[in-house]
């Protein structure tokens, strides 16, 4: 399979770009980044115009298109402004959980809320090696099977500060087998006992943020279970490709945005009596940056096409995530260098690209996570 954007996909890119150009504002973005504030108005508008969940079924207010289209929207938004773009797209992060494992009732009830911009989701990015360490405990309370009680704290919840609804993995302490006892639940943020314990000041993606959420004796009805009881871990690992693909798309856009700003700068800035774009080393830097972006783009689009298939290609998505976040960090680093002292100031935005790129990278796991998985999938099980 190869990617070649069709006219409808190109049109989506174009509308997304027009929207971002019209609605994203540099000064507001800097201000919101500084104050760690969610761009609520822009997110609402984006949702109303159908940019959120473009890959979700139409009957739930989605766009009925594929993952590649969603990638294009995320890439375009993040390309215009990395922090704003990420905030808008990550607010719907957990819609994928629901779309994949939710019951028809749950989907009918919640998906339109999320996709039409009335409800923001908060979820911890699932890392396969970190899952199961979460301290959330769910107990069946009262009449068996009617009510759950959740206690514990969950850290690094993406969008935790502004979320209206949390998607959590929860160990079920009433079941003996520890490996089989994790379930996926949805918890409304306004439920008694749910509090934002700590809103972490973040390196980047500050409009989104990550928070430690405390659940103290929170009662949720059994209908809040997503998918099957005790299948939480398995389900979580199956939606990994969706969240990784989104991170890859945002990183790709972040890289492109930093590149565009650097390119505009070197065409304008003069030193030593000529445009700095005239220096060979500048031209080569831009060439290397463009190369990294294009490599990441090929992988990410390719991975997007696979995600919609019956069986997502985990390896390709992990590769896309790795390549795109690496490209973003490296391209944004060089963009700052090309802008010199200006690049280091908040006024020129590439410093924000660099912080956002790095945040996307470390949220994708520690240095081993993705490479471990790619290696595992290549080598497979060894005979002892």
């Amino acid at each position, binding site marked *: 399979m190869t990617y070649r954007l069709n006219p409808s996909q190109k049109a989506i890119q174009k509308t997304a770009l027009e929207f971002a150009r019209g609605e994203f504002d540099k000064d507001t973005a800097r201000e919101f980044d500084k104050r760690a504030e969610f761009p609520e108005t822009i997110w609402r508008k984006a949702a109303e115009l159908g940019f959120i969940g473009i890959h979700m079924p139409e009957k739930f207010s989605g766009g009925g298109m594929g993952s590649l289209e969603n990638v294009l929207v995320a890439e375009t938004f993040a390309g215009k402004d990395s922090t704003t773009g990420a905030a808008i797209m990550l607010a719907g992060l957990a819609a994928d959980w629901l779309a994949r494992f939710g019951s028809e009732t749950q989907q009918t009830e919640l998906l339109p809320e999320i996709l039409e911009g009335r409800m923001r989701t908060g979820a911890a*990015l699932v*890392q*396969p*090696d*970190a899952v199961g360490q979460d301290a959330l405990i769910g107990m069946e309370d009262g009449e068996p099977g009617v009510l759950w009680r959740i206690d514990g704290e969950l850290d*690094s919840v993406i969008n935790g500060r502004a979320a209206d609804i949390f998607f959590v993995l929860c160990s079920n302490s009433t079941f003996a087998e520890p490996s089989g006892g994790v379930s996926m639940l949805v918890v409304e943020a306004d439920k008694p006992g749910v509090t934002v314990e700590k809103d*972490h*000041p*973040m*390196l*980047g*993606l500050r409009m989104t943020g*990550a928070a430690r959420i405390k659940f103290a004796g929170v009662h949720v009805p059994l209908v809040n279970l997503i998918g099957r009881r005790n299948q939480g871990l398995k389900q979580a690992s199956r939606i990994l490709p969706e969240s990784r693909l989104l991170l890859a798309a945002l990183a790709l856009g972040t890289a492109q945005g930093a590149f565009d700003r650097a390119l505009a700068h070197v065409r304008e800035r*003069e*030193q*030593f*009596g000529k445009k700095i774009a005239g220096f060979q*080393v500048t031209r080569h830097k831009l060439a290397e940056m463009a190369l990294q972006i294009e490599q990441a783009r090929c992988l990410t689009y390719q991975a997007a096409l696979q995600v919609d298939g019956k069986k997502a290609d985990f390896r390709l998505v992990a590769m896309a995530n790795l390549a795109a976040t690496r490209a973003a*960090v490296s391209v944004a*680093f060089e963009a*700052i*260098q090309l802008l*010199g*002292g200006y*690049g*280091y*100031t*908040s*006024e020129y935005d590439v*410093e*924000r690209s*660099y*912080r956002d790129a*790095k*945040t996307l*990278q*470390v*949220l994708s*796991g*520690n*240095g*081993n*996570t993705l*490479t*471990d998985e790619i290696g595992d999938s290549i080598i497979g099980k060894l005979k002892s």
Partner: protein
Amino acid sequence: MNQLPYTDEHNAFRRRLRDFLESEVIPHVDRWETDHRIPRDIWRKMGREGFLCTAVPREYGGLGGDFLYSVIVNEEMVRTNHTGLMAQLHSDVVVPYIDTFGSAAQKEKYLPGCVSGDIVTAVAMTEPDAGSDLASMTSTAVEEGGQVVLNGAKTFISNGIHCDLVVLAARNPNVANPHNAISLYLVEDGTAGFKKGQRIEKMGMRSQDTAELFFTNCRIPAENLLGEKGGGFIQLMQKLQQERLVVAIWSMAIAKYMMSWTRDFCRRNSRGGELLAASQAIQFALVEMETDLRVGTAFLNDLIMAHNRREAVVVETSMAKFWMSQKANQIANRCLEVVGDVAAREECPLVRMWRDVRIQTIFAGTNEIMKGIVAKSMNLQ
């Protein structure tokens, strides 16, 4: 292994400084970073304890110390994880201009205050349109009677808000050759026509009061010329060796700190039931970083000793500046990756260092300028 020849006096100085920073600076650093400023008084405290301008001769109140004292101050300041109190800029970059090129009267007037922290200094070279191309600066200095009239704007000036005294580079508009046109002047805060701009908001160095400086028909006495008239460009080039060496030392100290913090983190934290430090890939990553640090330190220590003997090591210093600032950024990036999502939060000390270290490849001459200097020394054309 080559170690720097620290004496007992050096070591005692380091211990005193470390104690001072631990009680007077480190507890306040988080607030200073949030406030985007440091209290002016910390400069005086630092000065009173004898930690500023260690190279200034004793007759002006300084320690009359060798460059190893500056190395110590640089390294210890990194442990405070902030740059608001940018002692290395004041002591090792700006004040040396006065110490080397100042007249007896200028030295008497200013040096004791620089040592005591009553005078905070800044150096103003960069302009909005003259960064790497320093010679293209447009700020002017015109003699009129017994005065010099200054006009122009300077930007990215560290200590720009707190500074009481500025070493300003400006050109004589009547001299065409930039290398003979630039002179250095001492401008005191409060001089009519000298205005400080807003603090510049930056990716890092958030407690550092970087600012723009504006000179509009600013009149200073002719005797505020620092050194020879028209000799500014050469004076700057002469002093940049130390400035760039300071950046190299600073970068290496940051990289060492980040690396050792990461190593400790890996020894204490697990993921998926396995201690991070037990991962072969993480071990190799740490080994590679440690090796880079050792290799870099060997070169750096050689340079420090050569500089301490007052040898001209401009080319080698340029190499060290670009290599070490680049390496420090690579190590910073790698450390954050090894640590993982914890390193997405500002409460992780590595994050501030990662933000702060990014400037090192840019200021004191970009790494591209450094490579240009080295290229010229290699008889390539």
